[in-house]
């Protein structure tokens, strides 16, 4: 691309995206190699879920909501059920709250492990990627046993949870916690002492606390800028009303900070799971839920692995919702995206995007290049190659932008 350095090139990245509302594509205007302007173009994954919910009864809607995203499916159903229960005035049994909490923290573990693996993969640590994903299987195994599925666990229902935790299973959860804690500490130490990783992440994709407020970023992105945006703490719900979460913040404001926050959160999640399993009360796991909701509206939020998840339900008294609005965490983090990208090199783009939420599937999106005489279809791999070329001139790590097995 060196021969085109004098052109302003518009590079749109990505035609499609793995999950609802986060589908991303950026039109990036380059001045030389510098990102001058980044326009987010999303909607590739727009399926029309909200409309579909309006013609389904609440029972059916729950399963659609679960499939907004396969990575934080439990966060979405928790939020939706919580909204439903608030409107219906249901008192969820304490045991159900604890089970939701356990599944929620397990989900956080699996999601962050997934992320760590992808991050490791991006810097060429394929072996570490393999290890983290292997250990993630331990969590998935538990989730499959608790809910009956590895991805869309289907644990929640209105008024509680669908399945109880047997004592044998709880013992296994504790056992896995011990195993994982040991491994996590090893990986965390390894990942955070690796020379190349630090060089690659520090100072990239900066979002200051003011920016966080301005773009209303959530989750680890906000917490890495020192803002305590954790719904479990600012508005405790369910089990978190009884068991407090230790706040985890960091003030690096960059991709490195986001890595630190996620790594620490995994250890915190293990602590929480242990506590939940120890403290879980006996009793029923659900109460009978009505099929219809009274007239009204509700705004409910929970903390998903990637940040605050907000659901809105409006009911007109029928057995179908009148309006459902889902605001997933990554959706909130898109707003600051262009800001994070602007001023950095094209080569930084993949890692910055990955740092808000590496729902990795984006990486095999094809890339459509237009402008500057280029009109080519190429794949994500190629943009990594391009990045490498750029880094050479900048003297910073190019090789990390690589996606092998994906």
């Amino acid at each position, binding site marked *: 691309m060196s021969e085109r350095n004098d052109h302003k090139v518009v590079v749109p990245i990505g*035609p*499609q*995206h*793995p*999950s*609802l509302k986060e*589908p991303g594509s950026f039109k990036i205007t380059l001045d030389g190699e510098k990102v001058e302007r980044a326009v987010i173009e999303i*909607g*590739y*994954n*727009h*399926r*029309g*879920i909200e*409309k*579909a919910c309006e*013609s389904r009864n609440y029972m059916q809607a729950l*399963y*659609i909501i679960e*499939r*907004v*995203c*396969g*990575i934080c*499916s439990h966060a979405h159903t928790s939020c939706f059920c919580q909204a439903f229960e608030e409107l219906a005035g249901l008192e969820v049994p304490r045991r159900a709250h604890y089970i939701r909490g356990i599944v929620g923290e397990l989900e956080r573990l699996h999601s962050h492990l*997934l992320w760590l693996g992808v991050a490791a993969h991006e810097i060429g640590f394929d072996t570490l*990627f*393999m*290890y983290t*994903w*292997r250990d993630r*299987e331990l969590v*998935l195994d538990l989730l499959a046993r608790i809910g009956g*599925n*590895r*991805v*869309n666990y289907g644990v929640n229902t209105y008024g509680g949870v669908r399945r109880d935790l047997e004592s044998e299973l709880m013992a296994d959860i504790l056992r896995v916690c011990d195993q994982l804690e040991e491994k996590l500490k090893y990986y965390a130490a390894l990942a955070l002492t690796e020379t190349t990783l630090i060089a690659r992440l520090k100072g990239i994709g900066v979002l200051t606390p003011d920016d966080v407020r301005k773009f209303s970023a959530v989750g680890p992105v906000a917490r890495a800028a020192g803002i305590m945006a954790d719904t479990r703490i600012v508005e405790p719900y369910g089990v978190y009303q009884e068991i407090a979460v230790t706040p985890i913040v960091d003030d690096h404001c960059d991709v490195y900070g986001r890595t630190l926050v996620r790594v620490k959160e995994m250890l915190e999640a293990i602590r929480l799971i242990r506590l939940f399993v120890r403290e879980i009360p006996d009793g029923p796991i659900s109460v009978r839920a009505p099929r219809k909701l009274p007239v009204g509206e509700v705004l409910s939020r929970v903390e998903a692995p990637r940040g605050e998840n907000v659901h809105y339900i409006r009911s007109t008294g029928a057995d179908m919702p009148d309006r459902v609005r889902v605001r997933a965490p990554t959706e909130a983090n898109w707003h600051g995206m262009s800001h994070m990208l602007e001023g950095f090199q094209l080569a930084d783009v993949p890692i910055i995007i990955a740092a808000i939420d590496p*729902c*990795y*599937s984006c990486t*095999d*999106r*094809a890339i459509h290049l237009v402008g500057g005489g280029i009109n080519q*279809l190429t*794949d*994500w*791999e190629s943009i990594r190659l391009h990045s490498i070329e750029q880094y050479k001139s900048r003297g910073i790590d190019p090789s990390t932008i690589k*996606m092998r*097995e*994906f």
Partner: protein
Amino acid sequence: MGLLDKAIAWGEKKSPWIIHFNAGACNGCDIEVVDALTPQYDLERLGILQQGSPRHADVLVCTGAVTLQTRDRLKQIYDQMSTPKFVVAVGTCACTGGIFDSCYCVTGGIDTVIPVDAYIPGCAVRPEAIIDAVGKLLATLDAKEAGK
């Protein structure tokens, strides 16, 4: 010549390289596809490698219900692959549109856009099921060979 053809047919069965495309899935099936490459399932032991370029791949592993926006892209990728090529629809969404079929922005299944060779139901599909399906798909090649 017959021997070479046979050898090539054998190679085809033993070395299916895949390319993964997400056509509006919920992520669930996508993580499972990647999961299948990691130690616990390790697709490489069956000779399956994941490729980045459609030119290098034999099997298009497709997830998602095909949103209107990804429709053309899916076609493009399919056209870029060199023959013989296969398409595997991974997940309920990819089979028929599944839970999103009635959504207005979804065409409803991979086979509304490109021909599909194998359907794997499941939400999300387990890595085992993916491995099993690819195995079965390759077994049909055997049958075809016996037929001709």
